[in-house]
């Protein structure tokens, strides 16, 4: 099963958080979230830490890529 990508670029809060929350509830493994601003990064990371999930962050072509570990 490939990486499931949530592309939340250009979307402002709370949309990125809602999309990630939905993907997690649907049981998506191997999740990768794309955001393009600091606020979305903070909000998505806050959601992940509340759920006890680890994340790894890297920058790719102007986007922030958040890789989620179960």
């Amino acid at each position, binding site marked *: 099963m490939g990486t499931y990508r949530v*592309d939340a*670029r*250009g*979307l*402002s*809060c*709370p*949309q990125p*958080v*809602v*999309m990630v*929350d939905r993907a997690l509830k649907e049981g998506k493994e191997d999740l990768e979230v794309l955001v393009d*601003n*600091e*606020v979305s990064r*903070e909000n998505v990371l*806050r*959601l992940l830490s*509340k759920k006890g999930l680890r994340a790894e962050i890297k920058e790719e072509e102007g986007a922030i890529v958040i890789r989620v570990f179960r």
Partner: protein
Amino acid sequence: MKNIFASRMGIVSVGAMIGILAALLQHFGNPPNMGICVACMERDIAGALGLHRAAVVQYLRPEIMGFVLGAFIAALLAKEYRPRGGSGTLIRFFLGIFAMIGALIFLGCPWRALLRLAGGDGNAILGLLGLVAGIFIGVQFLKRGYNLGRSYPQHRASGWVFPALMVVLFLLLVFRVSFSPGGPIFFSEKGPGSQHAPLLVSLGAGILIGAIAQRSRFCTMGAIRDVILIRDFHLGSGVLALVVAAFIMNIILGQFKPGFAGQPIAHTDHLWNFLGMALAGLAFVLAGGCPGRQLFLSGEGDMDAGIFVLGMIVGAGIAHNFNFASSPAGVTPFGPIAVLVGFIFCLVVGLTQRDRI
């Protein structure tokens, strides 16, 4: 670099700071329970520009300019200045109009609702309950995939337009330009518009709040929305800190006067206090931020937030020209109709704007 303002301690400090500054602004001359009221202050700006002719609410409020400029400077320093736009722009303009109409039925935005509560005004409870109800409705749309579409990066200079507009307003205030005899810029000689803290105090407080709110992402609507949507109390802790800090300051400064009747710049029509704020709350959710947050976003380059603000200013003109806005005597015959129209607009927007992203 870690953003300390985005921590729990950070948001609580920011909320407390806003509460303290709001109480002090009132102490230094702003109208009662209106140390800060984004809606009222934008309404006063609309009046000063002649967009409405309600003689008692006309003043170019430096706090609003400070909010935008403070956020602009903070965003530049933090490398978060990011011009963007193109997400449901015209819809946001109308959401701004109806948000303002709802707020002027209640007589205050969420910020003032909190400050009214901290000043002892029981009517604020109805407004805040309405706010929660409106946000609850909006969250149902969010859960069903509501969004106004993506925004896209814009040219770097396009994000300067809104801060520049604030500088122009500031110059008009400083030089008190009169464009024609009996014409704008208008300055109230009596009523709430005539009550204001000294210019530099207002501007300084505005810039400080704009900067720390930009860093902390303080948002009164977001606070309630996040609790309902994802059981997250992060922003909520900032809002609670605001109320507690303003309450303590009001006690110290002798500004706490509990009761329902005879509260300053308020009316006791419980139903319309509730419904006015419910409409505003719904519009804020659909637009993604409370009126304060929209100003901070405008400062960091969000042109769609800027359009929402302009919608609110135009909405203030409409609300007073068409006699929708309440007064301390109560709601007007047309106010409830405007609220109904606003609800219809927001419900249609909420139901229809849900393309897959």
